[in-house]
């Protein structure tokens, strides 16, 4: 913008700036409460990061407590669990991002093609419904299906004369179960975001395509998806930032914190909870979240760099 402005005569630039400010100031004023909220809620508490490097003493206070270097971080890397929990956290998130995006977009496109307004509303609500449920409720739904004696699947297996499966003690099924639960619960929400972008696409493109005789599939592939690209990329970068954090409810409540499943269900958040539940050590818990935030921050920056390399106009910043 600035470069463009420079090509104009000087007076012109000044004039333009003035006009722009006059239009922008009310916008900023309106945003002010939001900005204040953001600062109070997200930036001021950042000083709490120092707790991660301190041996907290409530009498000396946050600032007066003794520094302890990286001592608080040590428990994260004490044993071989460190590898497992980092692997689980990252791998599940990668799967969730890829699969979640594909399925949400698919659902959004399909829903957009439903012509009856009434039916489309019903479907949308049905798909969104699980998102509104608490993980505790979900965990009981899963339990109703997988419980040993009374569970749906085992009852069916028994009726068919097959060997029953002790689900909560058998690791190999859980990556699939957790992924399914996540997608089932989360799709509705991201689908709505994609759906609103699709609805906002100009109908002219589709009309033109239809006149040219494009099939539905061709329209989707050649028009909808390319036009959705900015939304997809934004959503992608946002979720990459969370790649080092995990949904505690999903990984703690749904497998019912079964020790036998830890190898495939324990993520960083669950580990921190289990390790510090009895000790309630503020220093160590903030160390864990500082670690998560820093890795998350690096990942967002990297993802954004990569995106800006390939399509600069879609990068976040």
């Amino acid at each position, binding site marked *: 913008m600035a470069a463009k402005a420079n090509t104009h005569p000087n007076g012109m630039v000044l004039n333009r700036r003035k006009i722009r400010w006059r239009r922008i100031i009310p916008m900023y004023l*309106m*945003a*002010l*409460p*939001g900005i*204040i*909220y953001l600062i*109070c*809620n997200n930036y001021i508490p950042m000083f709490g990061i120092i707790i991660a490097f301190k041996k*907290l*003493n*409530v*009498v*000396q*206070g*946050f600032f007066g407590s003794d520094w302890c270097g990286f*001592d*608080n971080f*040590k*428990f994260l890397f*004490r*044993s*071989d*669990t460190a590898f497992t929990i980092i692997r689980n956290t990252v791998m599940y998130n990668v799967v969730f991002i890829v699969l979640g995006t594909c399925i949400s977009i698919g659902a959004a496109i399909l829903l957009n093609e439903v012509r009856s307004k009434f039916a489309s509303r019903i479907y949308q609500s049905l798909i969104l419904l699980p998102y509104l449920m608490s993980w505790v409720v979900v965990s009981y739904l899963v*339990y109703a299906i997988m*419980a*040993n*004696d009374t569970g749906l699947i085992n009852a069916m297996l028994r009726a068919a004369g097959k060997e029953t499966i*002790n689900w*909560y*003690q058998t690791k190999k099924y859980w990556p699939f179960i957790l992924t399914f639960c996540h997608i089932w619960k989360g799709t509705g929400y991201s689908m709505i975001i994609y759906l609103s972008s699709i609805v906002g696409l100009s109908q002219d493109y589709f009309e033109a395509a239809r006149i040219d005789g494009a099939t539905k599939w061709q329209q989707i592939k050649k028009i909808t998806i390319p036009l959705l690209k900015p939304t997809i990329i934004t959503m992608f970068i946002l979720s990459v930032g969370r790649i080092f954090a995990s949904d505690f409810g999903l990984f703690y409540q749904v*497998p*019912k*914190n*079964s*020790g*036998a499943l*830890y190898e495939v269900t*324990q993520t960083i958040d669950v*580990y921190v909870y*289990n*390790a*510090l*539940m*009895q*000790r*309630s*050590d*503020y220093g*160590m818990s903030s160390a864990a979240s500082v670690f998560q935030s820093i890795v998350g921050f690096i990942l967002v920056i990297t993802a954004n760099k990569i995106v800006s390399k390939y399509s600069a106009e879609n990068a976040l910043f």
Partner: protein
Amino acid sequence: MKMKKLTALLLTAALALGTLTASGQEETPQTDEGDYYEIVMAVPTLGAEPSGLADVEAALNAEVGPELGVKVTMYPISLADLYSQQTLLVSSGDKLDLISVFFSGVGPYLSMGALMELDDLYAAYGADIKAAEGIAVAGGYYNGKLYAIPSEEKLARSYGFFARADILQELNMSYDANAVYSYDDLEALFAAYKEKYGDGYYCIAGNTATSDFYTYLHEVDVLGGGTSDGVLMDGGLGGNTTVESMYQSEAYGDYAQRMYDWAQKGYIPADAATNTDTNTLQIQSGYYLGCFSSTETDMISNMSRDCGYEMVPINTIAPWCQTSMYQTTMWGISATCENPEKTFQFLNYMYADNTIDNLLTYGLEGVSYEVVEKGEKDGQMVIRYADGVDAANTPYNMAMHVYGDKTTIAVFEPMTLDYYTMCEQLNNSIPDNRKSVTLGYVFDSTPVSSQASAVSAVVQQYCGLIAAGAQNPDVVLPEFRDALKAAGEDEIIAENQKQLDAWLAQQ
């Protein structure tokens, strides 16, 4: 689109304003009772602030004001937030004098320096506490110094298995309340029960995700900490003071094998390792025989009430005592307290012969409760809800009994005055060989805190599944033990031994 953005902005603004006003509503306690020192005292609640709090506070001050020259402000805190809110109050410089240490032990508070040393105060003003608590004061020590005053009515605990009386009768089995039974005795009962009732009926109800039955079957001295920080395997009763890992021991291996065996035979349900219902709730369902618990006489009526069946205890461990039994409910004085003398005097006064512990626990007589029968000592009585009052609308009734001398505190119907006789008998009949030699020693895990956290995560992973017999111990036990070693268990145990030796040398 414009409209939408505007709405979003307005909503954000409203939210921001909401947060601002919400944080401005903090209540400030008032001080204006002449020269009285104001004591702010944490009051653990089950969530809602009792409606009769102000009346109780007024009645309390009417008594302690002239007596001690203090004015007490009761500061209700929900049980779940007790630790975080109290440490926050202290660290942010808010006034808080009496800290309620509930279930956590003083360790977490001390690692942040939130509590004051009480040795001198105890020596100077602690006569009533000494008379009321006796050896239980051991629970409040840490690193050889006194930091908290326990409020404990039972000086010893016995453990065992509670079984449904109707089923025992049906099976024609009876157990002597004073005898101690073994694994095999329990197994015989389980086998008989299982044979009679068959599939779908189980013997042991247990919230096993977090529990460990081993300590219900063997005396284990946890040295004022947890089972994961190293223990004395003989409970400190046999004179052996070698700190060991409970989980590496042979006895634990046998126990694991036994639990697996029981699970295989269907005594323990296959989902036990993930069941989150309380064991009393499970027994209410009618599909369980009973559960492990501590088995002092008052527990019989408690269990019977909670389970909905009459329950009979089958003892597996005779009454004995160790430091951790006295750590359940304690009072500490915050490190920022301006007048520790006055505060301690008030604390001591709660333990003296008077009725303020009843007042703090049950509220005002005639308002929230009425007396059914009075006992020998001041405060000892059987009570019931006052007319028109019940559990739901009572203006003041603290479910958590944390105040003063609990051997002279009222009990609710249907309990009787026998309760006091039971307490007295239990407390006066502990032979010396049933008292751990480490009474008063509490392990300070701060020097090895990262190892301790890592180890406690490992224990969290395996001990529930071993208690539930969910997996073959031949496979999981070696895994469990390796994981403990890798997490630094040995360093914790060495540190614990070092501290214990130093403590023993001082005794």
